[in-house]
């Protein structure tokens, strides 16, 4: 069976998405983490454009443009400015060391692929394998949120989670209604602004962005 080239290309991009999520999981430096996030956004833009072109859904071009502006340019720029203002250039601390995290990651990928297998059996259309990859990326982003200790990298993990969901939505189900996408984009914008304010609040209270300090707020 010969799959059309456009869909092969989307398959290829999905594999790259998984690769970028893994690279984020392995990344020690916060600056590279943000750059990887920008790359993820760029990849998403390209894949959305390809899906839009191959399925002739013109509204997907708008969401691709939205992705480009928001996730490739604006959010990375905001995060860069934030870490400059907060003066955080430290290496990211993780709760589990990186090689073990990667091994857990492989386990998660196998789990996600198995989980998606029945869905792919039922689903028709040629982009079936993408659900498994998108699910794996979502779970890996979750893992990253769990294993990181600093607030900034957790936020990047959250944004990467949103990216993975967006990828699942555009490529596996050929896109959500435009209104929903605008809503989500706005939500992410607002969320990242609030995160920014939170960073300053956390640092003002604890003199650090290490969220384990929040344990002190609990009553005994």
């Amino acid at each position: 069976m010969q799959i059309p080239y456009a869909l092969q290309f989307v398959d290829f991009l999905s594999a790259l998405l998984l690769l970028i999520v893994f690279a984020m999981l392995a990344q020690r430096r916060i600056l590279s983490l943000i750059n990887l996030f920008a790359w993820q956004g760029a990849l998403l833009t390209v894949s959305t454009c390809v899906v839009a072109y191959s399925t002739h859904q013109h509204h997907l071009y708008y969401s691709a443009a939205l992705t480009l502006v928001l996730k490739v340019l604006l959010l990375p720029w905001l995060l860069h400015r934030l870490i400059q203002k907060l003066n955080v250039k430290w290496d990211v601390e993780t709760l589990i060391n990186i090689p073990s995290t990667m091994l857990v990651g492989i386990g998660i990928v196998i789990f996600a692929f198995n989980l998606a297998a029945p869905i792919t059996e039922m689903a028709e259309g040629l982009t079936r394998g993408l659900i498994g990859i998108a699910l794996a990326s979502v779970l890996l982003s979750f893992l990253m949120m769990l294993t990181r200790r600093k607030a900034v990298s957790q936020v990047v993990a959250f944004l990467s989670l949103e990216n993975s969901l967006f990828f699942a939505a555009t490529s596996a189900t050929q896109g959500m209604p435009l209104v929903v996408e605008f809503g989500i984009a706005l939500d992410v914008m607002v969320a990242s602004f609030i995160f920014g304010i939170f960073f300053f609040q956390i640092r003002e209270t604890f003199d650090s962005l290490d969220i384990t300090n929040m344990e002190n707020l609990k009553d005994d």
Partner: protein
Amino acid sequence: MSNLVEITALVTFQLAQLLLVVLAAPLLTGWVSQCQCWLQNRSGAGVLQPYRVLHKLFVKDAVMAHNASWLFRVTPYIVFGCMWLAAAIIPILAVDLPFSRAADVIALVGVFGLARIFIALAAMDIGTSFGTMGARREMLVSFLAEPALLMVLFTASMISQSTQLPRIVDALAHHQFVLYPSLAFAALAFTMVLLAENARIPVDNPNTHLELTMIHEAMILEYSARHLALIEWASSLKLFAYFSIGIALFLPYGITEAGDWAGLPLAILWLCLKLMLAGAALALLETLIAKMRIFRVPEFLGTAFLLAVLGLLIHFLLKA
């Protein structure tokens, strides 16, 4: 009668490949170091420098440690033989050569392993501390690199449903063009293994003069003259063989069928072009990245293994 002609053609092709590889391997090494020189704003010694070094080493008298055993003497020949055999198995000019039917990719990895065992034993044979240290480090690197290499080869085998390199090349090159996401992962993992196995920069520095950071060089410190020449030549052959495996798996377009005389010049042209590009890419990579601490190497190769496994998983999921 026609059968005889066919067999003669096959054998001629095999011999041509063997000769070409053994003669061109130092040229490739020279090309890589020349590219590095250009990138680092040095003038460089020219692409023919490895031949001059080999010539110099071959005319010198060999010096041997007093307590060297037969193992130490015989190792350079075994290592050179292994690398030459490996280069004979890989479809470099043409697929379906007589030698390549004798061994599949797993045996190929075994041939590399055999050479490594002998060179590590020879390094320990003399009993110098640097040799022993180099041998232990080499074993640390290679036992992590080997499973990753096998996983990469398995990914390609799964796609073509065969562990025979000619069949893999045939399935990848001579059918309709398909984008394989799993092979992208495999290519990345393979590049990392190539760097580690050929003592290249993030793992080891081939030009180092600092004994404490050496891996490969520490093992061959005691060798001189023709023995050293053979080992250096074998290293060039190994680099050539790894490049050829990479080309066979990821850029197989242009490799002809054995016995196809008309396709031969074009195949040689393609091979030269691809090797030049790959050599330049290697030089660029080595200029851009710094050597890492030895304790980071397991993590580096662990990542290579992980990428290879991911490639395999993605092959299962996407069936591509």
